[in-house]
């Protein structure tokens, strides 16, 4: 079958290097500490984060770091036929595990010992037709991870960096970015990648097919580009949200924290990004050089009456 026409268009009209339309929104569940909806094309995922909070089951509590838990479900209405699905089937257990491990790699769990962070991800709409279809479920992984990142940021959980995810595949001898349902079901190679874009580290890499190494590298490079594009977008969403909050507080344009943040953001080369939630409902990304305490103090002291949830 022809997945890329000689005119260079894919079945849905994208070019090989183009992503589907993405959209993210944070703060969609008020009760949760952080929440987000993330859409990639026709895939729509909601994520809610609770924590860090006390570990209800004391036997699972860890003294040196936080416990991260993740639950992935597909809403019954997310696919064409509304069959009742058993909870905790193999596939959703696997995806829960994948999301948990990916997010755990970037959450600074050692800062929150004896706590628990719960990530709930639910697919509201899955691309594709059939329910319980492996591809429909697998294709949602990227969207789930992106939604979880947004929700964790919303919750102000300290993270080393954002984690963003995107898939890429190889069909008709062409590397394709961000496969949709039809392309995913074509049976070609499909690489799902999760990276920490600023640290240039990979936290998730899955591929369930064979590809020669040189082609794999091209496909992976394409997926990295995709992840970075998602990261740029997520950062934009977060910034936009911060601005909105500033407007609401009437402090727009004068927040020293915000301007300091901008300066540092452009100046820093190697850095750790920490997302914090201040008790006034601020969501802010503070960026600083690794090990440089001076700058942290500067930011913190520049915001009057603010108390960071976590102190370093």
């Amino acid at each position: 079958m022809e997945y890329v026409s000689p005119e260079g268009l894919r079945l849905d009209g994208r070019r090989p290097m183009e992503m589907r339309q993405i959209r993210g929104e944070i703060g969609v569940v008020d009760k949760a500490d952080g929440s987000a909806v993330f859409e990639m094309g026709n895939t729509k995922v909601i994520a809610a984060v609770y924590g860090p909070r006390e570990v209800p089951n004391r036997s699972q509590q860890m003294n040196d770091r936080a416990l991260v838990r993740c639950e992935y479900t597909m809403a019954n209405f997310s696919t064409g036929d509304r069959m009742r699905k058993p909870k905790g089937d193999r596939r959703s257990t696997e995806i829960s595990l994948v999301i948990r491990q990916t997010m755990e790699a970037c959450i600074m769990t050692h800062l929150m010992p004896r706590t628990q962070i719960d990530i709930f991800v639910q697919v509201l709409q899955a691309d594709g037709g059939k329910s319980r279809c492996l591809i429909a479920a697998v294709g949602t992984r990227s969207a789930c991870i992106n939604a979880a990142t947004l929700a964790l940021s919303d919750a102000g959980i300290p993270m080393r960096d954002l984690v963003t995810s995107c898939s890429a595949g190889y069909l008709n001898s062409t590397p394709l970015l961000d496969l949709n349902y039809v392309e995913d079901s074509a049976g070609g190679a499909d690489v799902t990648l999760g990276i920490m874009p600023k640290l240039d580290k990979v936290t998730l890499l899955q591929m369930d097919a064979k590809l020669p190494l040189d082609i794999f590298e091209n496909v992976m490079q394409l997926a990295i580009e995709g992840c970075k594009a998602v990261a740029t977008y997520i950062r934009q969403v977060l910034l936009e949200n911060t601005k909105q909050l500033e407007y609401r507080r009437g402090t727009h344009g004068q927040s020293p924290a915000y301007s300091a943040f901008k300066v540092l953001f452009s100046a820093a080369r190697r850095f750790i990004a920490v997302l914090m939630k201040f008790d006034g409902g601020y969501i802010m990304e503070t960026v600083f050089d690794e090990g440089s305490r001076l700058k942290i103090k500067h930011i913190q002291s520049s915001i009057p009456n603010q108390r960071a949830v976590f102190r370093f």
Partner: protein
Amino acid sequence: MLQNKSFVKRTRGGKITKVVREHYLRHDIYCGAPVCKVCDTSGARLSPTASTILIFDTNVVLHQIDLIENPAIEDVVVLSIVLEEVKNRNLSVYNRVRALCSNSLRKFFVFSNEHHKDTYVTDMSGESKNDRNDRAIRVAAQWYQSHLAGSAKVLLITNDKENKRRAIEEGISAETVESYVRSLSRPDLLDLLVQPASEDVKMEDVEDLRPSKRKVVYSEHKPMSEITSGLHCGIYHQGKLRVNRYNPFEAYVGSESIGDEIIIYGRTNMNRAFDGDIVAVELLPQDQWHEEKSIALADEEDEQEEDVHLVPGSADDAPRTTAPHGSAGVTESVPNRPSGRVVGIIKRNWHSYCGSLEPMAKPAGGGGIAHALFVSKDRRIPKIRIQTRQLENLLDKRITVAVDSWDPLSRYPSGHYVRTIGVIGDKDTETEVVLIENDINTRPFSSQVLACLPLLPWFVSSEDLANPIRQDLRQLRVFSVDPPGCKDIDDALHCTALPNGNYEVGVHIADVTNFVHSGTPLDDEASQRGTSVYLVERRIDMLPKPLTEDICSLRADVERLAFSVIWEMTAEAEIISARYTKSVIKSCAALSYIEAQARMDDSRLMDPLTTDLRNMNSLAKIMRARRIERGALTLASAEVKFEIDTETHDPLDIGMYQIREANQMVEEFMLAANVSVAEKILKHFPLCSLLRRHPTPTREMLEPLLRTAAAIGLNLDVSSSKALADSLDSAVGDDPYFNKLIRILATRCMTQAVYFCSGDLSPPEYLHYGLAALLYTHFTSPIRRYADVIVHRLLAASLGIYKLPTVFQDGPRLTSIADNLNYRHRNAQMASRASVELHTLIFFKKRPTDTEARIVRIRSNGFFVFVPKYGIEGPVYLTPRGEKGGGEWYVDEQQQKIRKMDGSISYSVLQTVFIHMEIVEPQPNRPKLQLSLV
């Protein structure tokens, strides 16, 4: 811009679901006209001076593709919606349109109207899919009109009245195909037009044309829904219809649901199906299985025509073993084979066919439309009715015709003229017909393909020599032995005596994969062509000429790259060790078989080269003896050779191809190399090796051989290849040709060897019956066979020199490559045979000859003879055609004899007769070779 496309669809399980797909609309789709000032013109395909830009609708593309392919039609914008619809309805037309669009010489541009922000149309409620697509075409045409305002005229070509009316209402200029072609004032193009298939017109047509036939000839095809449900519940069976090459009134449908072949007798039961169509078949009640047959046979006798042809090379070419005279054994077996009739056609396999018009009286008024019947050269195809305005021109021409439709009211399908090949009987024309019939690509290599070639003049570079994977074997005394005048030398040999009394024997094969890299256009082209085709006076190469004749050819006294298999052998030809390496060689002599033989035979010559030859020959003899001991069959084929006049290219003489010891020597080492390589690659790649197997013939297939042998009192043991080989050896008659004749008959019963992918079969099936080899492949002729190129890559990968190309990880793809190779290989053989037949005909045209012949098969009204001298076979009629042979002659099936009723004369199988061969023309322009008893 995101736009969601939603539609409902029925799933395979029968449920109806709603499907929603993303659909992106873009700003960056350009119009493809170089005159456009707004768009990016880098990808523009239309000509800068185009005054009219054509837009075709789907039906026009589907039906008038032959017209569209004509170079008179230029500056066409093909809309993506049209392409998509064409693809869904007829893949072969789609491929042809795609080929046009990618051909840089034609001005065809694909406009992705479905993804352009201005030309995308959303579904309107209550609008059918077709109406929506027609609207999309009109919107696109309108967009073009306003987009290119002034610089070019946009013309929508549609045959749909409603569509045309609406287009004109919307201010688009629209025309029907016919009126457009008329406006071009090119009468020859009108013949390419498919007549509009408007129902009422058709009926009148039929009535006018042949009032006597105005009855339903064929039963109506069942609607698709009924076929699907019928297939589902097992009333109907689906399969590909294959028409018997030698009897067009008999066809087979291989059905998976039955696990057997269903036989279909007669045109009525075939119900308008063509060879290669996917059909739905209904089984006839069991009591009709045999009865149908006799009716079909009676029907068949009037039209069946036996031609003189070459001796079939194997069972695939020969007619099926049907016993038309109903011998006892066959009558019993017949009811076991299910017979059926076609109820519907699931997929048509129509393409264009080569042939000529049935001779008919010239029409009174010139220039008018005439109806003619077209007779295909391929006997499996029924006659086709066509309309033409140039009848006088076409009567003595070979033409190609495409089929358009087959009405149940009409005895013959109707079609249209596509193109003229040339005058009937002309050698070039007939050769081209042979090539077209066998689907052989004779087009020159495209510029992309030629761009993959290394620069000429090419020499072995110092890099090649320095390459650690390449061994320098230039010091070896390497030589090649080939047919005289061979330019594509792909194998060379060497044989050095070692101090320990053993021999080092090397087979050096041209290193084609050093130049043909996987995935390049050159590789794709070669894999498509599959093999070089050798005709009597012409060769159609698989690879471009610089590679075949120069860079890869292992010519004498030049350094060439090779892939070598080197054995250490004892004097008893036991292989002690084998190694494989890429190498650089320098051949010291390119001998012909005759020269090599002369050197070996001349006892005065004691030079090193001759000694090598003699050593090799003695090794080869031992190897051959051992192979025969294992049970390899020495089969014979009646290959003939022409001596061609260098000026006129007409055949001057014709004779059997002589096989010398030197041929056998080279053959022996090639076989050994192939077997060695097969073992090596299979060891490393058990799942993706390309091997060659020759299936063990079933007893049923050997039946004609056994029957003939029994008739002359010969007892053949066919229990194994060894037993058969032995009994063939012992079959020595009173004359020298007897044994060869038996071998030829045996060869004819075998199927052909085929390529396959080792992952598809289990190891016992890898067997090569004819060579009695457990494993076999093709390694030794990469210049002219693509299979060898694949095997070279596998061998290189198994040595760890190169990585295995990605194709090898794709099982289905490998299988399809192997299938294509088999198909091409077979076609190439058919074409060579047809070419020889053609030259035989030309040869005898001027030389009526009397010669000796052998009877090989007995028929009710005569017998088939084989003419050893010319390698041809044909019928000799004892009774004039038309009369049934029943009265005067009596056939003894058991004894394979035909006897005159009064017992005065009798002919038995294998008997020698003298015949007269002459070209006759029973109908004008239809020369054929006639054999008659002297």
